[in-house]
């Protein structure tokens, strides 16, 4: 029932310790670098001043960097930019940290600044604040990246007229690795927004 054709106005892929924006390498480190150090270095490479970055958990940091890079390509984002993210592990990095704290046998502690990140949609809150996005947010949980679901759902959000464009994709960040594909979907030019295209972008080998 898709009436319009939508386009991928920009996209960002983070795999392991390598970041690509619109298929071009932006930053990478050797794969053995811990995720936390990799994300911090990538932030420094962005050359922006946003102290709140350091308070975020790994999920938020990776998403923040990707959304920042896409803004340079197809931004600034309009206020009616909706957010449709998905991953497998939800907010597992922070969940694990909070649970470790409260079940510590010697000095159990619940940290408010950890607990606040134990919801995956907090990442959407963070980038909404950064880019002043005041639209709809949905965070789906799937076993793996599922463009077969996300493509028609994203299109329906645009057809509905509730959003002018959508930041969408897969954001799986674990203690071991990053696997992220985010893309900015709208009516402007770029590769066609369809399942085949997104599978290709997701599976594309590093240059």
């Amino acid at each position, binding site marked *: 029932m898709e009436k319009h054709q939508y386009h991928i106005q920009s996209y960002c892929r983070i795999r392991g310790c390598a970041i690509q924006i619109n298929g071009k390498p932006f930053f990478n480190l050797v794969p053995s670098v811990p995720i936390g150090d990799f994300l911090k270095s990538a932030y420094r490479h962005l050359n922006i001043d946003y102290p709140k970055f350091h308070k975020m958990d790994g999920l938020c940091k990776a998403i923040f960097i990707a959304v920042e890079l896409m803004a340079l390509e197809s931004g600034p984002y309009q206020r009616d930019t909706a*957010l449709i993210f998905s991953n497998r592990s939800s907010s597992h990095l922070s969940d694990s940290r909070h649970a*470790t704290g*409260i079940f510590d046998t010697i000095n159990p502690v*619940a*940290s*408010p600044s950890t607990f606040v990140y134990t919801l995956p949609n*907090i990442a959407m*809150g963070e980038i909404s604040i950064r880019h002043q996005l005041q639209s709809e947010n949905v965070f789906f949980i799937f076993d793996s990246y599922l463009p077969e679901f996300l493509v*028609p759902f994203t299109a329906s959000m645009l057809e509905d007229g509730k959003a002018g464009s959508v930041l969408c994709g897969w954001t799986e960040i674990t203690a071991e690795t990053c696997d992220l594909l985010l893309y900015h979907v709208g009516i402007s030019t770029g590769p066609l927004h369809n399942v085949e295209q997104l599978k290709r972008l997701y599976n594309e080998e590093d240059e």
Partner: protein
Amino acid sequence: MKDDVFIVGDEAITPLGLGSQLNFRHVVDGHTAVTEISDLQLADQPIYAARIDEAHWVGNIKDEHRYTRLEKLFILVLASLIAEYEIPLDERTLVVLATTKGNVSLLHNPLRTFAEERVHISTMTNEIQRYFGFKSQIIPLSNACISGSLAISVARRLLQYDTRYKRAIVIGGDELSKFIVSGFHAFQALADGHCRPFDRDRKGLNLGEAVAAVYLSKIPTNDAVWIAGVGSHNDANHISGPSRTGEGLYQSIQEAMQEAGEPALDFISAHGTATSYNDEMEAIALQRSGLSTTPLHSLKAYYGHTLGASGLLETILGIHSLKNNRLIPSRGFMHQGTSQRLNMITKSTQLPLNSFLKTASGFGGCNIATIFQKV
């Protein structure tokens, strides 16, 4: 032209019992599920919360030892809903599942009896999928305290735009755990007694647990309720503190009202967690929306905050309120306690009811407003 989508069935399990009509009767009779609980597995100190009695589900689920406590609750509610409305489990039936934390009580918990892998929401969902043999893949979402209401909106949109689906089951649930209690405690958000939404002397929230489900169809039944309009907007202001201007909630209400054709509202089922900032934010958003005089309740003093279930549970009670033409009082309210006056419902009055607004707001700055109308 978009198809209309209706709620044609509902079911819930709460500490007050299994069955949505039963829960409605308890609530209009003024019963609350919130009590003082002393349980070291939940908290080091006694807390005021609402917990489901385990005895309710014993013997009702096949191979029940294979499922976690929360999974059993999901299965019970789904089984009851599917049986009552004879819902086909074919590929035309969409299932959307809302939860904030799923099986998180297992995580690093020395007392857990399931593999830690089970904490993943998708793993939990796969177990439920397998139990019922749904032909279409369950769609799980996790969007803080608006998850339940948002899942209704997501299912509605899929029914409107995705021709694969004819009907939908929307289910939401969360359970009490040390994980959640300790976090809210660290946030100093827990009341040391029964919570009092919108009251002058409110001191924080009570936590609760529930699983609630609705059945959506494009074909209305005699007592169907139409999902007339939805709006959902982020505050873009703070990740844990509600906006001081209520901007995201205000925008959500505007959009829902516009889509619904600006109907006269008979009552509002607010989020009303009974924290100081949340209730004040809602009062401001409602005042800005010109809804200060519309009768309003929060149901948090009956069930506590049931997180991912709350939007669904409170929607279901609102629907029963419509069907029974009876307002549900806002338990715990005595004195105006927000800068903008609200028309709090204090008596269980019988009067003709046709439509209501359900709102929810959550961490991450998310808000949602949904308008329901009798057919």
